[in-house]
């Protein structure tokens, strides 16, 4: 019996040792070439990856998320960088951290496993997606940007062409994609792996309030104006209903941030009010 127990422990031990956890940071809308510095900033990335058993097991994705989510420059690029990361580091447990539209791109991969032969291996390695302020149901700001922009045969689009990512994040467009191409929203099949969101509920931009400066004061001033298009619960870019439309809610900002501070849409990708600590702790779970 003792030998049986020892053998079982040895097997368990080898299984545990075989697990290699890694984290991937997936940015939002934009064509990134240096998301580590420009999008997330080093403090955020380094504090979070510091929670890994091996902090070197991380990747910061740089793709063109100005494109539709399924585009080879968007989901295709993401699949390529994740596949390389998984194989080069021997990752067996992948935690994906997304921000904003990055949540839609990873949800495309998880919802459409047959679209690309690289997707199934990525999905099988994912243990969960921590989606920071995902634009799962789009945003009225995308609608406002596009509305009235008619095509004229002589001059093209009246206001110039708006990126496919902006078109995609209009509310009726995301409703269509959620109904027809993506999983995890109400009434639809669940995603194959956990997708949980962190929801930003408000914006502070008072000039006398130091909290307004985390993530950039100038950006937060703009978010106060964009809130005119949004509900009373929003992060300045997305309604809370959009951020919580897919998967499950991990937590609302004020429930876990220092001083019960809200996370504006710019702050939910930065080391503001302890968000980095929450994510760091999650690396060990």
């Amino acid at each position: 019996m003792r030998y049986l127990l020892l053998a079982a422990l040895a097997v368990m031990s080898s299984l545990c040792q075989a697990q290699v956890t890694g984290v991937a940071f997936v940015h939002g809308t934009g064509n990134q070439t240096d998301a580590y510095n420009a999008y997330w900033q080093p403090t955020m990335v380094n504090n979070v990856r510091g929670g890994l058993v091996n902090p070197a097991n991380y990747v910061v994705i740089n793709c063109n998320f100005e494109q539709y989510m399924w585009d080879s420059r968007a989901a295709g690029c993401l699949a390529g960088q994740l596949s390389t990361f998984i194989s080069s580091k021997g990752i067996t447990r992948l935690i994906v951290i997304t921000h904003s539209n990055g949540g839609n791109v990873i949800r495309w991969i998880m919802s459409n496993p047959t679209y690309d032969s690289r997707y199934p291996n990525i999905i099988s390695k994912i243990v969960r997606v921590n989606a920071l302020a995902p634009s799962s149901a789009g945003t009225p700001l995308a609608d406002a940007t596009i509305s009235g922009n008619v095509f004229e045969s002589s001059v093209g689009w009246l206001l110039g062409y708006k990126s496919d990512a902006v078109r995609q994040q209009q509310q009726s467009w995301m409703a269509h994609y959620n109904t027809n191409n993506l999983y995890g929203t109400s009434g639809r099949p669940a995603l194959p792996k956990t997708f949980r969101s962190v929801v930003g509920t408000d914006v502070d931009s008072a000039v006398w309030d130091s909290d307004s400066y985390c993530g950039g004061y100038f950006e937060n001033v703009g978010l106060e104006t964009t809130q005119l298009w949004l509900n009373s619960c929003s992060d300045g870019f997305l309604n809370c209903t959009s951020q919580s439309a897919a998967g499950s809610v991990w937590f609302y900002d004020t429930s876990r941030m220092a001083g019960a501070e809200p996370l504006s849409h710019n702050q939910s990708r930065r080391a503001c009010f302890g968000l980095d600590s929450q994510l760091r702790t999650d690396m060990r779970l």
Partner: protein
Amino acid sequence: MNKTLLFCLISASFSAQAANLLPTRGNDQSATRVVSAALPSGDFERKPVSFNWQLDPAAELAAPAPFMAESREYWAQVDASELARGYDIDTTAPGAVIRISPARGATPVAMDKVQVLRNGRAIAQPESFQRQADAKQLQAAGMDISEGSAVLQLAEGNGQGRFQLKLAKASGRYLVHVFEPNSPYTLKAQAARSTLLAGDTLEVNANLGNGQKALGGQMDGMLVSPSGRTVNMTFSAGRGRVQVPMDAASERGLWEVQLFAGTIDKGASIQRDARTAIAIAQPTAKLAGSYQFDAAALRFSLPVQVGAEGRYELRGTLYATAPDGIARPVSQSHSAAWLVPGSRSLSLSFDRSHVPLGYSAPFEMRNLELNDQTRMGKLETRELAAREGKAR
């Protein structure tokens, strides 16, 4: 009794045989023809790929209704001369938000040069606008607004009604967008379906109202392709109709229904514009109508008639019968392969380990879809495609 043994017994009770898919019903989409089409440019996966995963039987599935657009806004193209004189805007609630965007080649909007007038008299700041932001501030916040645009909110103290918007140093054309977040007047619009095939008829319900009260008035609308092609709609009793052109090409992105409504209510001029998205596909393939079910492998094989070379996908949900006799979702399966024109087939396999203990036949395949992955087209759907096996 373990699950494997149980399945062996179930499998023995019926062998693989051909059957017809259950008749289409309700919101099912079916193709009656197939067409050839050129391959779009781009890199497409050529390897066959299958994937399935377990579903929680307690999580009920229900097809969401098509999106209901709800508009409290309108927009208009305005010449610089009109803005220089003072362009009339009608508001129905305090605190209207106004966006002014220069069209190509127009002079950028200088926020401090925008004036608002009431009965021809200028309202001075800070009484005129309670909030202002320029394109740089809004772009920094993630709103991809055009260069040279400005957003201003009328101060609530000014109330509602007719104002004049004046921009002295304007040249070219501008888009003026008026959004009234506090207005009770809304235009609601909902397409009957969110996916159609070329040649289908689209119906849209549209209603301009004040709260729950429906208003009459004028309604216009059109169907707009991703590249800007337009087809006018006809309206009758709040319902718009349009036939999707047979040659509607598969384009990247979605088509839009754009609606424009206007009326006079209690002496106030009401304008509302709304948009909602739909997908249109060419019938590049169709289900042949039959299938074969291999109970031992929990696999459905479906013949597919292919008109255009491309990558096609089948997806569906397996329902199994719970001990209480109710069919519940237990597994989701997808399968895709590159197919050339002709009579082909695709198979959907479900993992038997996904069927919870105590669940058994009858099995149902629901939410079956045939998709064209190369052209992002939804070709066929069946809410209930097949039922297999008898109750124990």
